[in-house]
């Protein structure tokens, strides 16, 4: 077998389908790495060894029979999924104490799509509890470490999924985004991370944080792999009313293009609070693309300064409702079960949720309460519409928008954990697109002088993922 860590998902699938690589061997290697390097990063909560090996053996058998068709684009490719995605028979913890012992009896649609495509799910990755966080420190199972430097955070909330791709334990992993939870860790760990258009990938089986912005998103090391991963996972799903029927092109066939993009530079994204080195790197990317013939134009997204406030009001409101079901009655943790109902409820929830989750439940409950709804939730919903219009207007003028993904590179474990407001600013460049439903990608490009990865973000109109993959491919090629 060629060096496992050097293989892309595409190479693995091609090798498996051609009978040159064994799905079982790839899976064994991935599991071995998960148990060693993955463990050192604290990246996995559960390793799905038994089912993974069975699935891999089945793929190899299909290939032997000569029946593995091109319809299995991820044949034998080990993947990891964030532990808020439902996978039958394995704990889905959302990195929360409150889901102790809960084992889902059904597969998320995304999981079904992956398995249909021949992917081997080797494990479920660590994350910020219920996907709330930007550093992966809010996990009941402890923080994930950044593969580049174990003293640093990997970003969050999909820290585990990002770390296992950056560490090359798997070529593809799936995380989830609510306001930057794929793009931001992708930037901090130096991999590609996609937040699809809202409705692009079915949310059925994704444990809800904020339903109106939640999206599953893939992480990978190449533009081609991330396109492949999205292709497999995306599509209209009858079980998700908000998923969209869109005629997706075959992305991998259209990655290379002569098209010259018109790219907007939102002045609000290069203002105060942006780290100098990050700014320099993004400017280098702009220069490089300019040389390649793409044009740039300064644009304005005037509602940007409101985005974080709107984001935290809306997503916390939805979270306060979405997390109401964790009450000790039906599954998961139950404390004070021999006491009266109210005591059982409050003891269970007090003990089961971590500090950040509680903070958001309280915030969300507050903004929906009688007497406050109009001033907070309703107002935020109105401003959200203005944010959406900002993007709509911008995309009348440009094909894409470029910006930093995160205002800073990876920071130290513990550095911001006691300062939630500073932590919340990690999402400043990503939250707007989540509120507006637009797709965005973080492309690894350049490093700080200390060798820390930096991500360049591109945003696109609804369902213009193809442009994101193409520009990623262009930037990836010109960087190397």
């Amino acid at each position, binding site marked *: 077998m060629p060096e496992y860590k050097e293989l892309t998902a595409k190479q693995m699938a091609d090798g498996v389908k051609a009978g040159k690589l064994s799905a079982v061997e790839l899976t064994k290697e991935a599991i071995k790495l998960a148990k060693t390097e993955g463990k050192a990063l604290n990246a996995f909560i559960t390793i799905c060894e038994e089912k993974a090996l069975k699935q891999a053996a089945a793929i190899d058998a299909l290939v032997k029979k000569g029946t593995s068709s091109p319809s299995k684009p991820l044949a034998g490719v080990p993947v990891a999924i964030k532990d808020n995605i439902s996978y039958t028979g394995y704990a889905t913890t*959302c990195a929360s104490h409150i889901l102790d012992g809960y084992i*889902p009896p059904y597969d998320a649609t995304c999981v079904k799509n992956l398995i249909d495509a021949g992917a081997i799910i080797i494990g479920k990755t660590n994350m910020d509890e219920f996907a709330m966080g930007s550093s992966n420190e809010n996990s009941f199972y402890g923080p994930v470490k950044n593969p580049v430097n174990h003293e640093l955070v990997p970003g969050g909330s999909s820290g585990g999924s990002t770390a296992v791709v950056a560490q090359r334990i798997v070529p593809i992993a799936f995380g989830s985004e609510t306001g930057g939870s794929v793009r931001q860790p992708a930037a901090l760990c130096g991999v590609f991370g996609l937040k699809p258009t809202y409705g692009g990938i079915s949310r*059925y089986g994704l444990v809800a944080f904020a339903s109106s912005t939640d999206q599953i998103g893939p992480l990978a090391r190449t533009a081609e792999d991330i396109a492949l991963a999205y292709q497999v996972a995306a599509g209209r799903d009858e079980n998700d009313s908000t998923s969209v029927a869109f005629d997706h092109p075959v992305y991998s066939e259209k990655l290379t293009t002569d098209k010259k993009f018109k790219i907007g530079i939102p002045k609000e994204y290069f203002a105060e609070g942006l780290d100098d080195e990050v700014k320099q790197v993004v400017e280098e990317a702009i220069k490089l693309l300019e040389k390649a013939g793409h044009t740039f134009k300064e644009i304005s997204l005037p509602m940007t300064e409101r985005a974080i406030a709107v984001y935290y009001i809306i997503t916390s409101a939805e979270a306060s409702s979405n997390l109401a079901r964790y009450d000790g009655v039906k599954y998961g943790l139950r404390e004070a079960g021999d006491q009266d109902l109210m005591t059982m409820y409050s003891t269970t929830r007090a003990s089961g949720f971590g500090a950040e989750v509680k903070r958001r439940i309280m915030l969300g409950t507050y903004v929906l309460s009688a007497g406050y709804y109009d001033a907070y939730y309703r107002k935020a919903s109105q401003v959200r519409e203005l944010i959406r219009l900002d993007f709509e207007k911008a995309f009348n003028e440009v094909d894409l928008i470029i910006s930093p993904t995160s205002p800073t590179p990876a920071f130290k474990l513990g550095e911001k954990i006691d300062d939630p407001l500073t932590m919340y600013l990690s999402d400043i460049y990503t939250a707007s697109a989540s509120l507006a439903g637009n797709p965005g990608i973080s492309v690894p490009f350049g490093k700080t002088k200390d060798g820390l990865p930096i991500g360049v973000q591109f945003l696109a109109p609804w369902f213009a993922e193809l442009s994101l993959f193409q520009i990623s491919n262009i930037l990836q090629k010109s960087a190397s």
Partner: protein
Amino acid sequence: MSEYDGYEPVIGLEIHAQLQTESKIFCGCKNAYGEPPNTLTCPVCLGLPGALPVLNKQAVEKAIKMILAVGGKVRNRSVFARKNYFYPDLPKGYQISQFDKPIGEGGVINFQLEDGTKKSCRLTRIHIEEDAGKSLHPEKGEGITRVDLNRCGTPLIEIVSEPEMRSPEEAYAYFVKVKQILQYTKVSTGDMEKGHLRCDANISVRPVGQEEFGTRTEIKNMNSFKGVERAIKFEIQRQVKLLKSGGSVTQATLLWDESRQVAEAMRSKEEAHDYRYFPEPDLVNLVVKDDWIENVKENMPELPDKKAERFVKDYQIRPYDAMVLTDTVSLADYYDEVMQSAKDGRIAANWVQSELLGVLKDSGDDISTFRVRPNMIADIVNKIESKEISGKMAKTVFAEMVETGKGADAIIKEKGLVQISDEKQLLAIIDTIISANSGNVDKYKSGKTNLLGFFVGQVMKETKGQANPKVVNRLLKQKLDG
């Protein structure tokens, strides 16, 4: 108004009706009653992490049907909202309902009181929502509460009235009329015993002549139509008594206790809800296009008021009879079918109302499957109308029909029940009787005219009851008086 010591009640009802659909409102589980606990469930209606609702079109169609049946307006774009509260039988911690943009607005219910007074009450709104599960509490003291989630996600509509009813009797008649429309349209079975239909009442009282409403209370947990009437009456009297004694009504939710016939306030902790409604982000807006509304309109069955009007016009029956006969769809259909071949609407109406319903009431049989079919009743009606049989004979024939399921002709033949109306035949018998009872003939002629009954009796005896008494009466009078 003296009934309530110078106070006038103000009543509004909130009726919850379970929709008669194949599957639940947001998942594919069967919508059924009486299955073993927690067997009609799936990740969606159990509210498992990550599961999502998908709206059942049939439920929407039923809601549209009810809105149109009461003359309401169907909103082209309505919005689902979450109503948040904690309870063990509510697995998501919120109920998916509709709040500020319900699917139906307006409409009116026309109803009639027992004394025939016609009334109407406007509707505020009709909205779609999901039912919760059921908590099965232990009998007194020990044991644990169990939860059955089969009912979770059963589609409901909530029909909210304006506060326009002014007596418990009006509330009762309104509620019965709503049930009738639900059943006519097959929107709901309207079965209160199975919880398919539930009713909460908002009640306040005010001095007669005062325009402003008094403080209202809400009563829940009534489980029969008459129970609703009784609970409302109880609460009106309680409020009036309170006000008369110088007290004031506090806003509260009360639970009706049918066995003790009292309503008592829930603990304040149980009712202190801030439901924190907000738009349900897991569902898109519900868009109902005009052609869908038109389609439902075109397929609307004949509603009770229209049917009663038709009965009066086509079958020449009294409005009161028409109202009784249109009480349920199955009764109205039965009568309609009787009238396919019956020649006299009034005789038929009498027979269906008194004889048929009497038997059904005693036997508990279902009219739509009862062995005496409408054409069989029509036969009896026609034989009465043509005087082939007397009313008395008809009852014998009917009793035999109920017993054996045989047709009228067969029974008449078997029992030799044909009525003798032939004058010649009867005159011959009358002559024999007159000559055999000359003493009584003399007494009659001397003024004891009440002896006519004796002669009639003799003729009936002679003919084994088959003589047409009307004809016998006439002929005897002619003979004896002539």
